[in-house]
């Protein structure tokens, strides 16, 4: 590998951290700690984006890193923290069944992700192409989290972690999408979180809890 400089190595290490955080989220039961993990995921993402921008001398990546910092590390967690306090679910414990199975499934997903990334990373021109596998793994692990969890709040965290994974994938394969498109995505994400917030209140008003097990009435009979 001719181009692996110091920055690229740090970014690869950060990618590893991203994967670890995803696994930690999968096994975390408390809503509050989950949110903190999400913030950490955002911080890692911003750091790696800045490093990539510095090593590849791309100004538009700095902007996109700033946007991520603002949105995913400051605004969204703030909104979610306030929601959590208003709803009184800070100390909520979610019973998790079968953590070992979940971890094993997660491991298989990671292997699958690396297989999937092979043809693309062989072609990508960025210094980070080896980390695409990790990005896909983060996306798949977030899927697993959305599927396995039965609390509305946790599913939203999974959704945001999925967004983080997508953002990381875009940075690693192509140095990010064009700026205007990223602005549009950021706007969509912000609106989505607002709507999620509105939903929490509606769900609780109707069902007296944020447990999605109760949202099972619409089934084919």
């Amino acid at each position: 590998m001719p181009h692996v400089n110091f920055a690229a190595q740090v970014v690869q290490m950060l990618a590893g951290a991203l994967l670890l955080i995803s696994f930690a989220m999968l096994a975390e039961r408390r809503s509050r700690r989950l949110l903190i993990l999400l913030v950490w995921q955002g911080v890692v993402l911003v750091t790696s984006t800045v490093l990539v921008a510095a090593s590849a001398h791309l100004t538009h990546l700095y902007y996109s890193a700033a946007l991520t910092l603002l949105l995913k590390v400051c605004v969204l967690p703030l909104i979610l923290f306030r929601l959590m306090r208003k709803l009184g679910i800070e100390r909520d414990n979610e019973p998790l069944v079968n953590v070992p199975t979940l971890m094993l499934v997660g491991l298989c997903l990671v292997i699958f992700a690396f297989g999937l990334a092979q043809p693309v990373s062989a072609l990508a021109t960025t210094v980070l192409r080896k980390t695409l596998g990790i990005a896909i793994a983060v996306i798949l692990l977030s899927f697993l989290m959305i599927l396995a969890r039965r609390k509305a709040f946790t599913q939203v965290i999974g959704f945001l972690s999925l967004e983080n994974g997508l953002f990381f994938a875009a940075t690693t394969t192509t140095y990010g999408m064009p700026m205007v498109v990223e602005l549009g995505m950021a706007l969509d994400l912000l609106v989505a979180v607002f709507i999620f917030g509105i939903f929490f209140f509606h769900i609780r008003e109707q069902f007296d809890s944020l447990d999605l097990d109760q949202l099972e009435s619409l089934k084919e009979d």
Partner: protein
Amino acid sequence: MEILLVLGFPLLGAALLAMVGAKRYAAEISVAVSLATLLAAALLVLRIIRHGPMTAWNEEFFIDPFNVFLVALTALVGFTTSVFSRPYMRIEANHGRLTPGRLRLYHSMYQLFMAAMLLALTTNNMGFMWVAMEMATLSTVLLVSLYRTRGSIEAAWKYFILCGVGIALALFGTALLYTAAEDLLGGEGMGALLWTHLNAVKGQLEPRVMGMAFVFLLVGYGTKVGLAPLHNWLPDAHAEGPTPVSAVLSGLLLNVALYAVIRCKILADGALHSNLPGHMLMGFGLLSTVLASFFLWRQRDIKRLFAYSSIEHMGIITFAFGMGGPIANFAALLHMTMHSLTKSAIFFAAGHATQLSGTQRMDKIRGLMAIHPSVGWGLMLGGLAILGMPPFGVFTSEYLILITAMRDHPWATPILLVALAVAFGAIFSRLQPMVFGDTPDHPLPHSPALVPVFIHLGIVLMMGVYIPPALAEWYRLAARLIGG
């Protein structure tokens, strides 16, 4: 200029209606805005007929025969639905199911939803297409949960999570598309995401990356088309949301999502030099058609029944696009038009039918012909049209699809025929007792809006008997464009 009008009217309308609130004339404003959008769309159509395909605003927008016909269809159904929703939502408010605040939300979000769909149709930038599709999801989520009942909140949550995840996959597909194109078209500007530029170099795009990008885009946007196995959100959202929303979701949003899939298919076809994208569309299409037609038998709710019928028809259209070639594409485009007109007409009639009998359960809806003959006729004729009975246009398109399938893929024909027969039995056996038979009377506080129902069915009937040559030529142009 026309594009600006087409997008500007609904956007301005959304802002205006958000400010106006639930005043008495809010519904009239919504109708006026929709009419203005329809006129602007007509201007756009005229311009395309006269001058051919065009790009605008640094090539950010691109109009060709394929999308201009969908823009016209979207604006038309958007207008008739706003006409329909004026008395419908008033009756709902009279029944105490809606507060003024929610009516304001409804009118404003309805226009925003129209703007999002029109943006997704007219934009040339695959990134913006994604943003617009997400915007269309976000603006309808709160409409699905408008009644704030347990069922509607559950349906909206499912819609939000499933479509959110689906659309995230489409974003990943878009990023891969960008990867494949970056080297050819240069990464710095916006060029690498513009569809026209991609289309020009599609033969040189790296096939493996494009193949993977297409899989993600198909599954992602396919979730919004309602293709099995990711169709779960669709019946719930249609059954629990207000009827005008079911009509535009079924009649328009599914089309727009399918449009996105087809745009991607054109690129993937060129890059892969094989029939893989077409075969994938055929597979997903057949699976959805068969699955939906059997699920039709298990339905008890009138709106769920027709939601499953939408999945079935989207499956047929996807299958036809998968076969490709001028005839199948022509039939698929015709079927898209016919389905969206017929299905929205059915939802209008079904909406008034549920208001007349006070329930969505089909075994409680009886004797519409006796209580309100025009609702009964609307539902019956709409049902016959969607089942593909001969004088209606759906027959023409289904017939074309079937004979193409017989010629090119004979193995698929019996599967399609069985699915169509099963669907016929399921829908007709439910429809017949609802329309005929007797029942106690529930008068409506406002007279229902049935003009849109009969306008739609009239167009469908006309297209079944006689397709104007200009329109046929237009479909042919669009079909050739899709190729495959």
